[in-house]
């Protein structure tokens, strides 16, 4: 019932988001057709605006947009003028999603064990090493990690390609570049979760029952300690699936990240709104999934 209600809220929420995005992008100075070279006659500019209905009052433009949207049409791109927003998203989203999913698995795959063991092996040399590593991952931005990886592994040792999108081999460096920061973040969340959980009553009870340390850690502590990571996963996945400008530019990957930034710079109104909507849908749906995962992981959580 609770989830059904939340699903029903989605469409009006998305319409509201589209309206806000639609209005906000138009407050920026300059327009999609402002160029260094103006056409020979102002009449050409006027026709261009007319062609894309940009000469209409705002409310009319928005109604036209909603009409298209109700048929699943995000409208034309005003920058990539041979493509519609649908064309671009259906080309770029699968690419970003592939890379994002790989980076997501990488962050969890590295972050969870790292966080778990630094908490489980307290006082051990491993704790210091692991925590420092996690801190390092969080502190060094992709802007630095990427070029360093490229110089070392692609230019110097020629193990991986320097850029471009092709086979699995092309994905290795971008995945690490994109995922490293998040793996550090996940590790820190996981460690915090573990440290808090280890002092909880039910863990003390489990220990008192004489369960083995690994059973205590894995069967009892882990499930609860991982919850902060789970709630972080929803927005993280939405972020990763929709692409990263820095990583996609650096590796020249034909994903969404480049379009997210460029559409704003280009004042490509339909493109910006379309991308905002795709991101919003992902975020809302993934958060819903996160909440569902909570009920499964933590028996104390109930939604009524």
């Amino acid at each position, binding site marked *: 019932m609770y989830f059904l209600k939340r699903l029903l809220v989605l469409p009006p929420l998305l319409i509201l988001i589209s309206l806000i995005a639609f209005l906000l992008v138009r407050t920026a100075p*300059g327009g999609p057709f402002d160029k260094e070279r103006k056409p020979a*006659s102002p009449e*050409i500019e006027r026709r261009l605006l007319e062609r894309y209905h940009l000469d209409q009052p705002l409310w009319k433009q928005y109604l036209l947009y909603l009409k298209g949207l109700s048929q699943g049409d995000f409208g034309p791109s005003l920058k990539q003028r041979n493509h519609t927003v649908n064309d671009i998203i259906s080309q770029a989203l699968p690419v970003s999603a592939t890379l994002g*999913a790989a980076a997501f698995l990488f962050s969890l795959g590295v972050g969870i064990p790292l966080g778990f063991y630094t908490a489980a092996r307290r006082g051990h040399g491993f704790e210091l090493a692991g925590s420092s590593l996690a801190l390092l991952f969080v502190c060094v931005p992709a802007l630095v990690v990427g070029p360093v990886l490229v110089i070392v592994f692609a230019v110097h040792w*020629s193990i991986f390609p320097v850029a471009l999108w092709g086979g699995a081999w092309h994905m290795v460096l971008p995945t690490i570049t994109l995922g490293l920061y998040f793996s550090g973040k996940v590790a820190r969340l996981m460690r915090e979760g573990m440290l808090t959980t280890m002092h909880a009553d039910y863990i003390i009870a489990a220990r008192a029952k004489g369960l083995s340390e690994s059973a205590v850690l894995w069967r009892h502590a882990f499930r609860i300690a991982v919850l902060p990571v789970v709630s972080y996963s929803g927005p993280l996945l939405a972020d990763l699936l929709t692409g990263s400008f820095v990583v996609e530019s650096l590796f020249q990957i034909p994903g969404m990240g480049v379009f997210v930034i460029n559409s704003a710079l280009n004042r490509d109104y339909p493109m910006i709104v379309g991308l905002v909507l795709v991101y919003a849908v992902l975020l809302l749906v993934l958060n819903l999934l996160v909440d569902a995962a909570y009920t499964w992981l933590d028996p104390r959580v109930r939604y009524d």
Partner: protein
Amino acid sequence: MVLVFLATGFLTGCSRRSDRADLVIINGKEVESLDPAIITGQPDIRIALTLFEGLTRYNAVDAQAEPGLADRWEISPDLRTYTFHLRTNGVWSTGEPITAEDVVYSWLRVLNPLTAADYAGNFYYIKNAEEYNTGKITNASEVAVKALDRSTVQVELLNPTPFFLELCAFQTHVVMPRWIIEKHGDRWIHARPLPSSGAYELLAWRLEDRVSVRKNPRYWDAANVQLERVDLMPVNSPATALNLFLTKQVDIIWDKDVVPTELIDLLKKRRDFHVFDYLGSYFVRFNVTRKPFDDVRVRKAFALVVDRQRITERVTRGGERPASFLVPPGLPNYQSPAGLGYDPGEARRLLKEAGYPDGKGFPRVSYHFNTSRSHEMVGVELQEMWRRELGIEVELRSMEWKTYLRAQSELDFDLSRSAWVGDYNDPNTFLDMFMSSNPNNRTGWKNLDYDQWMRKANASSDPAERAKFLSAAEALLVRDDPPILPLYIYVGFNLFDPDVITGLYNNIRDEHPVRSIKKRARSTARAGEGNP
């Protein structure tokens, strides 16, 4: 939805990259369109001219016009009527003959107001073209471009236009496939097969990935086209472009935007890095509608204290040529007059005369530029020159691209960084910009003498007389009543290994037709170097 996207992502995203094309070129930023009628950017134009050809085409060596789809033409004695004869072996890549009707259709399509083509102005030299494009007449048949028969096109011009044959090679003047455009409308460029009139046909276009083209075996000059498959790639990061080049995944980088200029001193030492004179000019616009730059003495004073050499040596460092004039050297039959040189004493005198002795009482003014490290460094140099020599404090304002453009076109600035790249080998491509009614003037400057000289020049059929008039106009622009402060003439850059790539010639138009590029196998190219 997410799952569907993910699933398709794993299928399409992970499929193996097909083998390397015969030639891979980094073509700059992603193109906006491949429709020759509406494109404006140089990367777009380079691809469009690979796919489509006009009555003439650019010569690979010096970018002058040479016969294209028309193999010969006659020009009337008054230089106002051109009669073109199409070659008999001109066919579409899909086999249909290319006719005079196709030419007329293509030209009128660009002029059609509904197409809203940015570059429609390139046709305004034709009788009634401007009237049709701006809606003053609605009957397209009144535009003076006619198909006399299946293979003859006749054009009537308003003035003798010495660069008209060159315009005929421009992307706006290419021949486009009527039946495909009428069938598919705005999405015609996505039709496959896409009939092409040029040396290559379009295989695939994936945004931010590549445009793949294949040799058009039916092209009239196919015998001289060597490379079978060519990929033209967009790259966003100059560092990535260089890495791809250094690891030999691409053969050529030919767009200035993706050459890492911060490495210019290192690049200049490389044999595969090429610097050449370019038909582009870097200058500053004054807003002459506002105080204090409505006073010509103030504008002159600002120009007279600029040490251009310092800017090209300290900031740009690519071998740019300091220039006190606007029109780049290297155009046929033309020599720019000298503009205002370096004379701080005269500058201070003019400033005093204008009522600002030693800069006292000078209003706050700012210098606008679009956000970029090199524009900012030019700004810092200028700021220092104006402060030191004139005692005037100019504020620097870095602006995001579209905001900067809007401010410039609405005359909402005092001083604004500017640049212009010529479209054809004639001074008119620079000078007509400052005619009173030109939308690219953007200084508020209206000089009737200037307009008069320009009109006289363009009505003249004697090249020497024409050059004299143009030079008189430019003298007003850069010396006697300057609305601009010219700084330097651009150079072009590209990267390719001259032992491997041949048939690529550097010219001031930065025009390198793909059809003439040839490639030697790396092993044979290296053989000559061999062991001692």
